[in-house]
């Protein structure tokens, strides 16, 4: 794939090697153009005006919802709630379904590989309600330990939250197996953090079987501050609103209010219509490539990078084999702190992430304070892998090899 020219930031910076797409992706001109076009031709407040420009804005917003829902295999378009991103979507479930349904003595299961966004809201809910948070541990290879999960889920379990793909290790979790296990052993709802799956391979919400699936547009070529929650209608309809205000109401009496239908009940205030239009353009772009090809491309680059990195003495790579991961390569080099590695790589024009990746519980279990993480996407190529390798070798030169 030779897609770099489609991305203005990359095209304008030939020496830049962007390997931090798990944090946020670059944006193709098609997305930027779609958003500009919305503001230049269709901008008005959706759902409000009786005039034709507002109708046009509303249509753009509705069309975007339907395009994104179709891309993620959700037949019930109105069960896709636009949010600021994965974090807000997960907080919506914890704050609305969780507050209404979790009680003292109940249990909530999360995993040791969850991002803080799918860990802290549940931890805080448990503290607030007097419920117990249980953590599903990992195998030595960085897979979810389903045996551990089987032992944790019981009739006391109200929520099982997990990620589809680990942002720190790249592990792809067996969602349908987890859902079956949870259904067999409990009446718990399943909440899947899809921030690292929606951008990287085909996802069909209706086939996954989870009750809620959250994702972020900015990690999949879309604009920042626009993501979504897809939920099962029967659950969403019973849930209280998450925020209140304009658009989400039906009638406001002096002493009480009633709520609008889905999806509006969960979308208080003026929606981010331009962002939704941008995300729709992003999924159209990804759809033209084909999500199977996206994954194959990332894996082929990652396989080369992993083979070459492993050949460097002192490099340690975390997580399961390449064939079981999406485009994330987490590693450390000797006693060189990942921050120092990232600074040296930055000097070579290579952008990687260094730190705990918002997964402190996972880092504790790996026994490291931080890792370096290179993540791959559609615009990366072998030049980026070459630059990564040169940078790591340079770091090794600067720090010198000290035999322990």
């Amino acid at each position, binding site marked *: 794939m030779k897609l770099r020219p489609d991305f203005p930031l990359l095209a304008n910076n030939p020496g*830049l090697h962007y390997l931090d797409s798990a944090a946020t992706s670059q944006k193709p001109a098609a997305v930027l153009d779609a958003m500009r076009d919305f503001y230049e031709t269709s901008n008005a407040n959706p759902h409000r005006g009786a005039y034709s420009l507002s109708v046009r804005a509303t249509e753009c917003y509705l069309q975007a919802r339907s395009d994104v829902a179709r891309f993620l295999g959700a037949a019930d378009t109105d069960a896709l709630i636009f949010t600021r991103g994965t974090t807000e979507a997960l907080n919506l479930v914890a704050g609305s379904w969780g507050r209404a349904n979790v009680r003292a003595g109940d249990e909530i299961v999360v995993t040791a590989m969850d991002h803080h966004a799918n860990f802290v809201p549940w931890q805080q809910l448990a503290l607030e309600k007097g419920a117990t948070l249980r953590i599903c541990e990992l195998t030595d290879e960085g897979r979810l330990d389903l045996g551990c999960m089987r032992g944790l889920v019981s009739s006391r379990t109200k929520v099982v939250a997990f990620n589809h793909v680990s942002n720190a290790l790249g592990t792809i979790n067996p969602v349908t197996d987890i859902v079956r296990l949870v259904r067999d052993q409990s009446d718990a709802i399943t909440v899947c953090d899809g921030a690292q799956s929606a951008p990287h391979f085909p996802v069909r919400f209706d086939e996954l079987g989870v009750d809620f699936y959250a994702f972020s547009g900015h990690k999949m070529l879309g604009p920042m501050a626009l993501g979504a929650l897809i939920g099962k209608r029967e659950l969403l309809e019973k849930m209280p609103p998450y925020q209140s205000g304009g658009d989400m109401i039906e009638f406001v009496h002096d002493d009480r209010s009633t709520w609008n239908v889905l999806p509006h009940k969960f979308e208080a205030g003026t929606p981010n219509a331009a962002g939704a239009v941008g995300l729709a353009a992003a999924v159209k772009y990804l759809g033209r490539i084909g999500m199977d090809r996206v994954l194959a491309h990332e894996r082929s680059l990652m396989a080369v990078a992993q083979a070459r990195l492993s050949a460097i003495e002192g490099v340690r790579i975390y997580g399961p084999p390449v064939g079981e991961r999406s485009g994330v390569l987490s590693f450390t080099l000797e006693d060189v702190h990942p*921050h120092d590695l990232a600074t040296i790589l*930055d000097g070579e024009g290579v952008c990687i992430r*260094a730190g705990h990746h918002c997964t402190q519980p996972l880092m504790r279990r790996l026994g490291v*304070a931080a890792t370096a993480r290179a993540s791959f996407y559609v615009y990366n190529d072998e030049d980026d892998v070459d630059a990564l390798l040169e940078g790591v070798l340079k770091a090794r030169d600067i720090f010198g090899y000290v035999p322990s």
Partner: protein
Amino acid sequence: MSRPETSADIAALYQEMILDHYRRPRNKGKLENPDATAEMRNPLCGDEIDLQVNFSGDAVGELRFSGKGCSISLASASMMTQVVEGKTAAEVDAIRRRFRELMLGDLTAANDVRLGALRALSGVSRFPARVKCALLAWNALESVLAGRNG
């Protein structure tokens, strides 16, 4: 897009002296009965420094630090303990302010002999994302001294 870091900047950042303090930190460990302690965390990267200090009169006596972090944060901690030992609170405060100026790009501070080995960290100012690493131990020291005054 500005990308100020060049190979020369990288070389200036990772001077031999910094790597030496990173690999062979001075005053690393714990005091038996410290007069004051402070823990500092950088939640963004997970770096942590635990600082322990004894006082002798108005002066800073023995110091020890422990923790984990990058070469910049640990070298800065190691050098700091050497430079401030035996100095009065007022002197330490002046050094701390001067070091901060150095980190914010005041290169006249790079010639200030009061900073001693810390001048080797002058390259950090070219890397805004790393200034916080260099200041972590100093924030711990500031907290120790503020606690003493308060």
